C-alpha cells in the first residue's frame, strides 16, 4: 500500500511546479507583448517626431522674412522708416 501522504506531497509539488511554470510562461508572454507594444510606441513616437520636425521647418519658413516680406510688399505694405515707429509706453498700474 502506497503512502497517501506521499501521494499528496507529490501532487502538491507537481501543482506547485506547474504553477511556477505557468507563471514564468505568463510573465514571458507579457514581457514579449510589452516589448512589442514598446516597439510600436517607439515607432509611433518616431513618426510624430518626424511630423513635428517637418511642421517646425514649415512654420519657420512660413514666418521667415524671406517669405513674408515679398508677400507684404505685394499687399502694398512696406517696412516702416524709423521715424514712423512710435513707441507708446503704457503707464505703470496704479496701486489700489
Amino acid at each position, binding site marked *: 500500500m502506497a503512502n497517501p501522504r506521499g501521494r499528496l506531497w507529490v501532487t502538491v509539488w507537481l501543482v506547485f511546479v506547474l504553477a511556477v511554470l505557468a507563471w514564468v510562461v505568463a510573465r514571458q508572454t507579457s514581457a*514579449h507583448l510589452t*516589448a512589442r507594444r514598446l516597439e510600436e510606441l517607439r515607432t509611433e513616437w518616431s513618426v510624430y517626431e518626424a511630423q513635428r*520636425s517637418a511642421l517646425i*521647418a514649415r*512654420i519657420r519658413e512660413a514666418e521667415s522674412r524671406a517669405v513674408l516680406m515679398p508677400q507684404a510688399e505685394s499687399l502694398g505694405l512696406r517696412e516702416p522708416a*524709423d521715424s514712423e515707429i512710435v*513707441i*507708446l509706453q503704457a503707464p505703470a498700474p496704479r496701486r489700489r
Partner: protein
Amino acid sequence: MARPFLRLQLVQVVFIVGFLGLLGRAAQVQLFQGAKHAAAAAAERTERVELPARRGSIFDRKGAALALTQEVFHVGVAPNELDSLAADSRILSQELGVPLRTVQQRLQARWAYFAGPYNSLVVQPLRGMRGVHLDGEQVRFHPHSDLARSLLGHPAAEGRPASGIERVMDTLLAGVPGTAVVLRDRRGNLYQSPARLNAFPVPGHDVYLTLDGDLQEIIEQALTDALEQYEAEGGDMVVLDPVSGEILAIASGGEGGSNALTGVFEPGSTAKLFAAAALLTHRLVGSTDSVWTEEGEYDLDGRIIHDDHPEGWLDLSGVFQHSSNIGMVKLALRLSADLQYEMLRDFGLGTPTGVEYPSESSGTLKPPSQWSGTTAASVAMGYEVAVTALQLAQAYAAIANDGVMMQPTLIREVRSPEGVVVRRHTPQPVRRVVSPAVASELRSLLRGVVYPGGTGETAALTSYEVAGKTGTVRRAGPGGYIRGSYTASFVSMFPADDPQLVMVVKLDDPQGNYARLSAAPVTRRVLEQVLATQLGPLDRARLTTSQVTAEPQVVAEHGTATWLSPFPVVQAVDSGGLEVVPDVTGLTLRGAARELHKLGFRVQAIGWGVVDSVAPAPGDSAAIGSVVTVTASERNPPR
C-alpha cells in the same frame, strides 16, 4: 537459478553505472561547464545592441529650434522575400519617391539598397512589408536650413570631426547610450526583450544660445544683400548686448571660410577709439586742444600719411568726425608705446575673448619691444594690429557699458532632458577698461561721427541717435598691401545714449571702398529692421527715452527728455511739401499716429490714453516729415 540472478544483477549494475555516468556528465555540463554553454546558447539566440541616446537640441534665446535630432532610415530590400515583386515595386516607388523604372532595375539584383535618408513618415507604410529592411540612424535636422549654420557646426560623424557649437558642447549634447540584449530568431530578426535591458539611454542636454533668431535672420540677409550690392569678397557681422556680453547675432559670408570669430583684419580707423581712450584716461588731451592736420598730407619721419578728407585745425572730436589719420597720429605721439600697448591690451586686443567656440583667433598685437619706429603711429590708425569682428565688438561694448568690458558668450542656458536649468549665463565682467567719465566722452566722440559731415553720417537714423566709427583700411596680401583693395568696417552703438546693441559690420573689398558708402548704410538698414521687428533683446521702454525730438520746448515742458540732438530730425524734414495737420483729437494714440504717418508726419506722443491736443493745431500747415506732437490723457483710457 544462480545464473539469471547474476544476469539481473549485472543488468542492474550496468544501469546504475550508466545512470551514474549520465548524472556525472550532467553535473559536468551543468555545474562546471554551465556558464560556457549558457553563453553559447545565448549567443545563438540573443544579440547585445547599443541603444543610441537622443542628442540634445539647440535653440535660440527665445526657444526656437535651431538644431534637432531626427531618426532617419536607409531602406534595404531582399527581392526574393517580397510577396509580390510588381505590387511592392509600385509601393516602394511611391513611398520613396524613386521612379518605378529605377526601383524595378534595382530589384533585379539580390539586394537593393535605397540610401535616402528617409524619415519615419516616409518609411511608415513600408514597416511590416516582407523583404523590406529598415536601417535607422539619428541625424541632425535644422528646421531653418541656413540660419547660423556655420556657427552651429555639425556633430562628429565617420571621418569628419565635429565643429562649431556642436563640438564645444558635445559632452553635454551627446547623452549616454544605453545597452540591451535582444532576442534573435533563426532568420536574424531581432526582438526586444525588456527583461534584458541593461541600461536605459540618457538623452543629451538641450542648449539655449544667446542668438536671437529674428535678428540673426535680419543680419544674415543684410550681409547677403551687402555682399551682392557692393560686390564684396566677404564680410562679417556681429551684434552684441554690451551689458550682458551676450552675442545676439553673428553672421559671415563670402569667400575664405573664416568667420567673425576666426578671421582677423586690421581695424583701421575703428581703432582710433583705443588711442583716444588712452589720451583721455591719462589726460593727455583737453577739450580745447587742437592739432594741425596738414590739409591732408603729413610726412612723419619719411612716411607719408594721408587723410581722405583734408582739413586744417581739428580738436579730438573733429579728428573723430573726419577720421583724420594725421590728427590721430599727432595726438597719439603724446602717448608712450607702453601706454598705448596697455590700453590696447585692456581692450582685449591680442587675446581670445574666450567665447564658447573652437579655434577662436586671438588676433595680433605685438609687444612694444617688437615695435619699429612707425608702429606707434600705425597702431593709432589701426594698422599693424589685427582683430576679429567679435574682439572689436567686445571692445566697443566696453565703452557702451560705461567702461566695463564683459565676457562675450554664445550660451544662455543649458537644460537637462527633464527641462531643469543646469546652467544659466550670468554676465561676467572681465575688467574695467576706462572710467565711466572717459567712456561717456568716448561715446560723445562716436556720436559726432554720425552727425552731418561725419564719416558715419550714412548710418544716421531719423528718430534715434546712433554712435559709431568707420574704418577703411587697405587689405594686406602676400606681397604687402594691395592697391585699390580695402576692408570697410563700421562699429556702432544703438542708441547712442544708454546703448542696447553694439554692432560690427565688416566688408572685404567692397566696390565703393569706403565704409561710409558701404558698411555704414548697411548698419542703418539693419537698425531700421530691428526697430520694425518685435525683438526680445531690444528694451523698448528704455528706447523711448532715447528718441530724438524736433520740438525741444514741448518736451522740456513735459520733462520727458533731458537731452536733445540738433541733427537727425532737421534732415528728415522734407521742405518740398506742406500738408494740413488733421484733427486727431479723440482718437487713441495708435490711431492718431497712424493717421499722421499716412500724411508723412512724424509723431511725438506724450501721455497715455485718448488724444487731447495736437501741435501744430489741426488745420495748420506743416512740412511733410516734421514732428506733430499729440498729447493724450488717461481720463478715457483706450480699451
